[in-house]
């Protein structure tokens, strides 16, 4: 199911700035620990041991959101080597989204089960709105199987339409952290992801005196150091969350968390170590 072992490192690029090296190493460490954790869960025959349908759904969501978060953060850290912070920023916005969704689902196992069981409705919605992307036979076959499923599961078909919006999800799982972290992790990156008007100030600077326009192809305000710190922070919290939920060996998480604190204290001039999500040792929320 996963392609965790594909080669990722491109060795012809170098950056020996000590701050970059420390933050890149930290981000790489976090991404590697997440990768090992997902492999451990996925290859360890865990799924077969879970009996409750809600817990099975949650485990699948760990596979989905965990893998997506791993892929996006691994890609973002590679982009740091080329000095491309804007795309890193967009990818970390997605990683934040995966983290929020995973936490929300764990707070609402019934909803998680409902969403997983309603997967045929999700597929049908996409197929219906992109019929040209599939052969007519496939569209017809999927429509037939959906009609049958909808007849057998009218409640699920309706429940799928009552999908919870992202902002309320984030507000619930972030608690008071929402006030400070939402802006950094979602609003600010949305400026670049959706080319909002403030993106103009990130790309150009106008000297009104002589009319000289300066273009900033690699971002005027964002930098790879800040984004590497963000990768390390959010991936570490995700590792901690999954570690507590599935009660796996906590040592890799503890070591990573300690390293995060040390490196950010020494080099994280823009990213101090602070939590994005509330801390708790209780299963169903994030760890201390």
């Amino acid at each position: 199911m996963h392609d965790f072992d594909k080669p990722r490192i491109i060795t012809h690029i170098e950056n020996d700035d000590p701050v970059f090296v420390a933050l890149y190493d930290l981000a790489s460490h976090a991404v590697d620990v997440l990768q090992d954790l997902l492999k451990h869960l996925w290859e360890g025959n865990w799924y077969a041991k879970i009996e409750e349908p809600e817990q099975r759904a949650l485990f699948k969501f760990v596979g989905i959101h965990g893998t997506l978060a791993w892929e996006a953060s691994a890609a973002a850290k590679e982009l740091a080597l080329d000095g491309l912070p804007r795309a890193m920023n967009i990818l970390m916005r997605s990683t934040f989204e995966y983290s929020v969704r995973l936490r929300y689902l764990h707070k609402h196992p019934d909803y998680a089960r409902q969403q997983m069981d309603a997967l045929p409705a999700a597929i049908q919605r996409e197929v219906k709105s992109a019929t040209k992307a599939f052969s007519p036979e496939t569209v017809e076959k999927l429509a037939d199987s959906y009609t049958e499923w909808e007849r057998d599961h009218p409640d699920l078909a309706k429940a799928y339409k009552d999908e919870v919006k992202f902002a309320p999800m984030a507000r619930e799982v972030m608690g008071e952290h929402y006030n400070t972290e939402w802006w950094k992790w979602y609003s600010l990156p949305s400026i670049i992801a959706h080319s909002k008007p403030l993106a103009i100030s990130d790309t150009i600077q106008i000297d009104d005196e002589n009319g000289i326009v300066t273009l900033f192809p690699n971002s005027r305000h964002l930098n790879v150091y800040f984004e590497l710190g963000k990768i390390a922070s959010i991936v570490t919290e995700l590792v901690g969350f999954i570690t507590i939920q599935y009660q796996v060996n906590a040592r890799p998480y503890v070591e990573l968390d300690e390293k995060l604190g040390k490196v950010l204290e020494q080099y994280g001039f823009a990213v101090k170590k602070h939590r994005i999500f509330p801390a708790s040792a209780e299963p169903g929320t994030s760890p201390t």
Partner: protein
Amino acid sequence: MNDEKAKHKASLEEMLCLLEQTLEAVRLYKPKAPEARRDIALRRWAMTLGALMLNVGRSASRLIETDDVVSVMILGRSMYEYCLKTRYFFKDNQTRRLAFDQFMTIVTSFVQGLRRLPTITDDIDAKLAASYDAWLAAGGKEDPYSGKRAATTMALALAKPNEILKDNSGDSYSHQLTTSYHIP
């Protein structure tokens, strides 16, 4: 990298080079007569959307090398939106006006966003308020969403009539919008 991937990457790089040359021409453009504020705003939008496309496009091209399909798809969605917005803003007089309206929300969004943060001190807040008032006095928009249009609205406005389809609920969509924006 296999041949097919190399071909796609080369074709993307070629387009990005053309875009870079175009952007440079726009950057160096000197109007022969004083321009309307609306035209200046439109050119700044063009440079911004072009620079974002170039930068995010180069990032996507880089990730093609490492097979980061999901991330390329996420970045591709933003690239589609940059393209959509550029074409929409240049579509007609009405959409040019919308581009200007959006341009005139820059300080509004900045100030409103920052003032929501609990870490803002009274001193900073007073400075932000002063800059906001000056901005409004210069014609800035009070509503940060002035001129904003959803991606779906822009895509449907740009689609040819035969490209606009209806789903079972009667909502309009286009194949390109779904595959480039909604599915990613």
